[in-house]
């Protein structure tokens, strides 16, 4: 049993492939960690559902290198993000900022949950009324 369980785990285990290539990494571990954090929230514009941190697209690589260059030059995390936003817009951020334009987007889950609760409430009440 234990054997089959282990075999099952082994077969289904998956590891996310690391897109960041060794020659891209910064020597300074603190800067590199910041670069990784920023890259995880930057959209790869060619392969839109992916972050540049795990995309193998050419442009994603260029942007990863650019993020590291700017950090090395002394930019804050926010300055790096702003630099890219100035060129590619909010779309480059995987988490869109909360503002008027995106309010509906952010509130939709809460609205849907609320509507669901109301529907469920009405349903339950009806049934208990019948019983």
């Amino acid at each position, binding site marked *: 049993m234990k054997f089959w369980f282990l075999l099952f785990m082994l077969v289904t285990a998956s590891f996310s492939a690391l897109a960041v290539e060794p020659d891209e990494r910064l020597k300074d571990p603190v800067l590199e960690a910041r670069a990784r954090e920023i890259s995880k929230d930057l959209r790869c514009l*060619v392969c839109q559902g992916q972050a540049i941190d795990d995309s193998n697209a050419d*442009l994603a690589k*260029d*942007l990863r290198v*650019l993020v590291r260059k700017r950090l090395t030059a002394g930019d804050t995390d926010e300055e790096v993000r702003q630099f890219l*936003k100035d*060129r*590619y*817009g909010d*779309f480059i951020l995987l988490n869109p900022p909360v503002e008027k334009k995106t309010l509906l987007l952010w509130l939709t889950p809460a609205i849907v949950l609320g509507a669901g609760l109301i529907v469920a409430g009405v349903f339950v009440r009806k049934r208990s009324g019948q019983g």
Partner: protein
Amino acid sequence: MNKIPLILFAVLVVFFVVPMLKGKDPAILESVMLGKQVPEFSLPAVVKGKKGFSSKDLRATPAIVNVFSSWCMECRLEQGTLEAIGQIENIPIYGIDYKDTPEKLAPWLKEHGDPYTAIGTDTDGHVAIDWGVYGVPETFVIDAKGIIRYKYVGAVTDEVYRAIFRPLLAELRQ
């Protein structure tokens, strides 16, 4: 009450079908560079007999800036149209040669056409990033003040010229 799922379904259908019918390609992104000054840059020449260019060249007259490369398949489709635009509209067309080499570019221009007033080479692609480029080909329309007025993603075909570029360039001339 039992009509609710049907109504929800109808809403979803409208939600998904309307963008499809509009023919909007979600892969094409709106540029935030529109209405801004062209970024500062200076690109060296790449082929014999043709100068490189810089942001300073884009402040005198309306101009077209085309980001292309010899390895880009779609770029072949627009060389003829770009040549025609240059002649018909009498407008300079600047080429940003994206991540390319002179050895490959020179024969490519001979084979597919050379509409360019000047070609600058962007070997590492950094200038293209300053323009907000995310693929080739991309084509920008610049007004006489050096402000980016329009960006087209994909090959500029004859249809695209007639539908978009011709009216826009006429407007810029006024």
